[in-house]
Each structure stands twice: as structure tokens, then as C-alpha cells.
């Protein structure tokens, strides 16, 4: 051995002690550095890619007569997805149209009825006026015995009868007016018939189902001929515009997290490629799974169910922090994909919030009903 150290035992001894001490100091310092880094930039591997999913369902029941998309196909907002047998609904709409026409005729008839009742009332009023006058005149003559008592009684009876006829005809007029169904300037019969027609036309329009967003048809496993029940989801549409990562962070990490913080996202599907995300929100609630107790309202006779034993070692609850992926174009994100994320708590929050606002502008397009368009949803973009 020509090593210079081998000469002096003392040197080796000193060096040995130095290395021993240095190893303890270094491990303390380095562990502290690692801990600081992780505390300032919390990370988790428990994260999944998520997207907004629309369960495409029909608003009317019926046999599916045509499916115009294929599984995994990209569709655009307003594209025709599938059709339901529209014949029953078309017939229903025709019926409602006829009913509306019939209602118009009915309204005319009731108006005529009112005119007749008015005439009738006028007539009976005139008759009553005469009968009452006549009865008065006859009454005046009874004392002088110019008329018989019987004649007088007959005149009085006729006066009462004629007056009652007026009341009767007034009631008949009132009834005819009520049957017409006018309330102020509007006719409720007409409104009911028009609403029924609108409803049946709406149902007819629901026979064609359109895409409500740009997205991917997913899990389409039926063919024309299948029966679609009202509200039953036929397949899913994965909104392609906005993608999220739900990263489940320990509750100990959450206190540093704020919406707008910049995030490094690594997807298993794009190994080694660093993507950018922004924290959109930190959740306020999850179901507590690490305790056997249940303090939720309702359930078990609306009382808390409290376990007398708990685990000796408690694990931190995890909360799904929502991270919006920036610049989703050009990536083939898949919902459910595995991700790992690092949140930079020291990043520029205001800049991050601007990115969030920009990304959500794309998302906030409202759904427009198929009604009123010429077979397509009116596109507002």
C-alpha cells in the first residue's frame, strides 16, 4: 500500500472521527433540506386525470331508430348523436295542433253564446220592467174594485216571475262568460291548448339527441332497435375542453394550498414530460373513512354512531385537490389516468388565477335546448 494515510495511525484515527461526526451532521442537514423542500412543495402520487362527463340520456322514451356516432368518436357541440322513433310524438303534436284549432272554434262558440245570453237578458229585463209597472198599476186599482183580486194576484205573480227571469238570465250570461275562459285580456282555454302544442312539439324535438359539448363518445354499446327509457343514459360524452387532475393530498399539506398555485403534473401516460397545472380549489369535505364512528346526520335513527375504540396509529385523511391542466390541446389525456403532482406553494397566485379564468371561459358555455333550432342546437360560439 502506497497510500499516504497508511503511514500515520493518528491521521487515520482523526479522519475516522471526522467522517463519523460529518456523517451525522450531513444526514441531519440533508434530511432537513429534503423536508423543507417537500413542505414547501407538497407532492402526491395519489392523483388521477379527470374530465367532465355527460351521461347522454333521452328526455322521451322510444325505440332508437338511428345512431349517428361510433364509440370513441370525437363529436362537436350540436352534432346529431342518435334518434328515437318520432312517429308517436309527431302524432301527438298533430293532435295538439288539432286541439288548438278546435279550441279556437270553441272560443268562437262561447262568444256567440255570450251574445245570445246578452240578448236574452235584455229581452227579459224589458219584460220585467213592463210586468213590474203593470203590477203596480193593477195594485193601485184594487182598492176601488176596478180589478178583481185574482187579476191583481196574477199581475203580482207575473212581476215576480219576470224579475226572477232577469236574475236567471244574468246568471246564464255570467256562466257563458266563465265558459269562454277569459281572464283579463287573455283566454285561458287558448293558453292551455297552446301550451299542450308546445309541449308535444318539444317532446317531438327530443326525439333527436344532440351533443351538448365537444367531446368523445364513450362506452357506446347499443345499436338501433334498442329501447331507450326516459332518463336512461345511453352512453357517455367526455368533454374534451377542460381536463383536471384530482390529487389526494394529506390534510397536513392542505393548509399551505391556495387556488392559483402552480403545479407540476407528471402523467404516467406521458412519462418524463412535465405538464403545468393550476390549483383550482381545495375541498371542504370528504367522507371520513379513517374512523369507525359516524357523525353524519340521518342514518342510524338520526343519531351519531360513535365507536368506543379507535386505531392507535391514525393516518392523515386525504382530500382531492382539484388541479386544472393548462394547455390541454395536443395532449391525449384520458380520464382515470394516473398522475403525480407537485404543488409549488411559493408560486405567483395572481398569475395562476388568470390562467384558471382563461381555462374556464372555454368551459362556461351554457346548454341550449334543441327546441327552436332547425334540427340543431343554436351554437353560441
Amino acid at each position, binding site marked *: *500500500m502506497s*497510500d499516504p*494515510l*497508511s503511514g500515520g495511525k493518528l491521521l*487515520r*484515527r482523526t*479522519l*475516522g*472521527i471526522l*467522517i*463519523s461526526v*460529518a*456523517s*451525522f*451532521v*450531513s*444526514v441531519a*442537514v*440533508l*434530511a432537513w*433540506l*429534503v423536508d423543507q*423542500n417537500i413542505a*414547501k*412543495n407538497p*407532492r402526491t*402520487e395519489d392523483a388521477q386525470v379527470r374530465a367532465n362527463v355527460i351521461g347522454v340520456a333521452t328526455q322521451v322514451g322510444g325505440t332508437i331508430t338511428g345512431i349517428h356516432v361510433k364509440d370513441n368518436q370525437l363529436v362537436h357541440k350540436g352534432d346529431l348523436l342518435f334518434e328515437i322513433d318520432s312517429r308517436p310524438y309527431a302524432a301527438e303534436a298533430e293532435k295538439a295542433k288539432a286541439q288548438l284549432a278546435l279550441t279556437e272554434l270553441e272560443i268562437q262558440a262561447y262568444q256567440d253564446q255570450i251574445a245570445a245570453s246578452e240578448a236574452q237578458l235584455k229581452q227579459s229585463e224589458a219584460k220585467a220592467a213592463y210586468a213590474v209597472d203593470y203590477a203596480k198599476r193593477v195594485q193601485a186599482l184594487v182598492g176601488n174594485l176596478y180589478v178583481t183580486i185574482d187579476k191583481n194576484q196574477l199581475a203580482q205573480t207575473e212581476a215576480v216571475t219576470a224579475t226572477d227571469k232577469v236574475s236567471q238570465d244574468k246568471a246564464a250570461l255570467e256562466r257563458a262568460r266563465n265558459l269562454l275562459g277569459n281572464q283579463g285580456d287573455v283566454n285561458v282555454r287558448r293558453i292551455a291548448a297552446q301550451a299542450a302544442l308546445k309541449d308535444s312539439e318539444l317532446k317531438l324535438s327530443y326525439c333527436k339527441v344532440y351533443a351538448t359539448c365537444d367531446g368523445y363518445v364513450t362506452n357506446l354499446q347499443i345499436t338501433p332497435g334498442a329501447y331507450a327509457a326516459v332518463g336512461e343514459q345511453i352512453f357517455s360524452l367526455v368533454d374534451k375542453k377542460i381536463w383536471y387532475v384530482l390529487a389526494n393530498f394529506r390534510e397536513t399539506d392542505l393548509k399551505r394550498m391556495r387556488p392559483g398555485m402552480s403545479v*407540476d403534473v*407528471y402523467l*404516467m401516460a406521458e*412519462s*418524463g*414530460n*412535465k405538464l403545468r397545472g393550476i390549483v383550482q380549489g381545495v375541498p371542504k369535505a370528504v367522507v371520513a373513512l379513517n374512523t369507525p364512528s359516524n357523525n353524519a346526520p340521518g342514518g342510524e335513527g338520526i343519531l351519531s354512531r360513535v365507536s368506543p375504540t379507535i386505531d392507535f396509529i391514525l393516518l392523515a385523511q386525504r382530500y382531492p385537490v382539484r388541479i386544472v391542466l393548462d394547455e390541454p390541446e395536443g395532449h391525449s389525456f384520458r380520464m382515470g389516468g*394516473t398522475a*403525480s403532482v*407537485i404543488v*409549488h406553494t411559493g408560486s405567483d397566485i395572481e398569475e395562476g388565477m388568470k390562467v384558471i379564468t382563461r381555462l374556464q371561459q372555454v368551459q362556461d358555455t351554457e346548454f341550449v335546448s334543441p327546441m327552436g333550432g332547425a334540427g340543431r342546437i343554436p351554437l353560441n360560439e
Partner: protein
Amino acid sequence: MSRWISFLALSVLVTMTGCDPQLNIAGAYFPAWLACTLGGLFLFWLLHLVFLKAGLLPYLFPLPLVYGALIASLSCILWLLFFAAP
């Protein structure tokens, strides 16, 4: 030692960007800390050979703790170099 730490701090500053914390090996994903531990073990083995050659082994006390501390230190260094967030 302090020079070593300053070199380390400098390296961290220079790299400035962390790597993917999941390492893909034949379709299975390994966490970064596992890779760092394995790398730390390997570097420690090299260091052990140096100590052996220099005849320092009898003077490292307490040996198991010193070795444990060295393995942990080397692993931490690797993690800080490659996986720490800037």
C-alpha cells in the same frame, strides 16, 4: 464538508427543475425515493471500498450508525439533485 454542501446547493440551483417523481421501469412505476435509496446504496458501496482501502474502518464509530447516516445522506443528495422542486 461545507464546500461539499455549497457544491450541493449550487447543483440544486443549477438543475432548478425536478424530474418525474415516478420512474418507469418496464411498465412498472417506481417512486423517486426508492431509486434514490438504491443509488445511495450504490454510492455508499463505492465509499465503503475507499474506506476499506484507506484502512479507515476501525476508526468509524459507531460503524452501523455511521454507515446508516452515510446511506441516508447519499440518498438525500441524489433526491435533492434530481427530484427536489426548485
